[in-house]
């Protein structure tokens, strides 16, 4: 059976496999000594490819956020200050410390009122709102003996040390709990920084528990 060339049922091959391979192999071979004939197309394609690569480099320089994993908006650049974790609020942390197991609230009470005759109050206390040097020393080494707070004297218990000889809290923790106390329950005193605590810690060394008389000497 034969089909005419225009019959759609069979696609006549105008070239054999060998002819195909031979011709294309020849096309890739050096084209002879043709000085006048310069094929333009490969050159154009080369320039076009280079152009796209140049475009790619320029675009990526501007819109890839310097390949930083924190840059989700291609219009922006990495800004590590903005994406760093914000500092935690010392008052929140201080409150957590105040109310943590076995800490301040057990004696001074969560309301800061203390227990009359036993534990002095912190709410409205002139000691708590007073000189930072005094309160820091109280926490770092503890307080022993009688102490007068808001006109009343307390001598029933000893304030434990939260420094190296006791609970060994860090400068950050002491500064946070003091900052919390100094602004809670109506208290209005400036916060305390870890640097202040560190400075006092260095000064006092391993001083035993303070007495109120000693502390009143300090401004």
């Amino acid at each position: 059976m034969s089909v005419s060339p225009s019959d759609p049922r069979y696609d006549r091959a105008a070239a054999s496999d060998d002819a195909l391979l031979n011709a294309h192999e020849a096309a890739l071979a050096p084209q002879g000594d043709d000085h006048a004939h310069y094929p333009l197309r490969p050159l154009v394609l080369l320039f076009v490819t280079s152009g796209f690569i140049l475009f790619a480099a320029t675009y990526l320089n501007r819109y890839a956020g310097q390949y930083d994993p924190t840059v989700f908006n291609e219009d922006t650049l990495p800004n590590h200050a903005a994406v760093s974790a914000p500092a935690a609020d010392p008052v929140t942390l201080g409150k957590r410390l105040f109310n943590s197991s076995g800490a301040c609230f057990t004696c001074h009470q969560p309301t800061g009122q203390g227990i009359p005759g036993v534990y002095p109050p912190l709410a409205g206390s002139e000691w708590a709102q007073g000189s930072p040097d005094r309160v820091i020393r109280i926490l770092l080494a503890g307080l022993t003996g009688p102490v007068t707070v808001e006109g009343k004297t307390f001598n029933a218990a000893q304030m434990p040390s939260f420094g190296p000889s006791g609970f060994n809290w860090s400068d950050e923790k002491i500064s946070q709990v003091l900052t919390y106390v100094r602004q809670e329950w109506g208290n209005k005193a400036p916060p305390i920084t870890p640097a202040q605590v560190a400075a006092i810690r260095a000064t006092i060394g391993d001083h035993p528990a303070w007495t109120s008389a000693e502390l009143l000497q300090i401004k």
Partner: protein
Amino acid sequence: MTLASTPTAETPAAPAEVTVVETAGRVPLLLLAGSAIAWLLVSGILALASSIQLVHPDFLSGWSFLSYGRLTALAETAFIYGWVGNAGLTVALWMLGRLSGEPLRAPNWLLAGASFWNFSLLLALIGIAIGYGTAVPFFELPTVTIPILFLSYAAMAIPGVLAWVGRRRDLMFASQWYAVAALFLFPWILAVGYFMLDKIPVQGAVQAVVGGWYAQALWTVWMAPLALAGAYYVVPRVTGKLLPAYDSAVLGFWVLVVVGGFTGGRHLIGGPLPAWVASVAIVTTFLLLVHYVVVLLNLRVAWGGGGTALKFIGLGLFCYVLGGFADAVTSVRGVAVSTQFTFFDVAQTQLALYGGVTLMLLGALYFALARILGRPWCSAGLIRAHWALTVLGLAAVVICLAVAGLRQGADLNNAQVSFAAIADDTRPWLVGAVAGAAALLLGNILWALNLAGTAAAMVREELFAS
């Protein structure tokens, strides 16, 4: 320029055109081709059903295994791994056999591999239908089926690799580069996808990067090369012309294979990943245009020729190149904001996978199967009907989905428009897409009938001859 020699006595069943490649490898190649057509029809039915569901959400909603999400996953998987896989391998292995000048060696490996590939694909589809799909675009295969698909593909690739290694000439033709790339690289990307998404999954959003890379790699180093292998072979053989820009074909090949892997972030523009992932994908999608230009410059001679194969390949070339330029344009961030997440993206996928790859494979198969069967196709009318229905169906699907997508994109970007209103706006166009899908399916059914008739005629002839 025409090629040096043309074969003499060019009649259809003349021995010059039916070589030992066809006679030795007929059964496995026909198994692959038959499976390909079966999967094309299955995926066509599934795609038609899912496109009807877009217009009538209640359609088939009572059955869990036919819910819309599963149906689209089924249609896509059957199309990519069933139709494109089998058809591409048929064309690639046959072509490698012919250009090596030797009969296809290890045909039993091919038979075994093809059987296991198609059987495990069937199991994979059942798995997706009952809810084990992975919901990764282009990679919904249930994880348990992947190892056996990997081994089946390796078995099928063996004859191709042997044909290439044992070729008579050193210098390779462009078809061979593309076919070898597809044979070697698919197992690699399948394995990487399997390990990084399923076995030792990467954390969180990085899975989206792996998924995007896999989908783009599947397109650029597997599907497109299989189609181009067929096109680069059939076009010069039928036209008898030298490919005009053949010295640049090497550039086109390497640009596709190297640059293609970088474009994976194209669908992650504006997504929850660092901006560089999308930016790299955008610039490399533009760089990939060089490949499309080279392919256009080389294969444009198909537009001048006649005959079935060149008609399909010619239209396929047009769709393929148009798809490449569409990819570049829609990856520009200012355009992506309106086309992302819309049916326009679906239209682009259809243009590339159906318009580009499928049409080129159809052309190559029209050419190849006539030789594998040793006779012309039995019905000219069915061929013309297939062509007409394919053109109409493809145009309907791509254009209707594109317009629906543009309307949807405009509506989505307007916060006042409700989703009910968006559905109303897009529905008329989606009905058009349903009609297109039906036309494509009908065309393919006619082609399957044509193949069945031709194969039956061949069997009858051999039975009476012996």
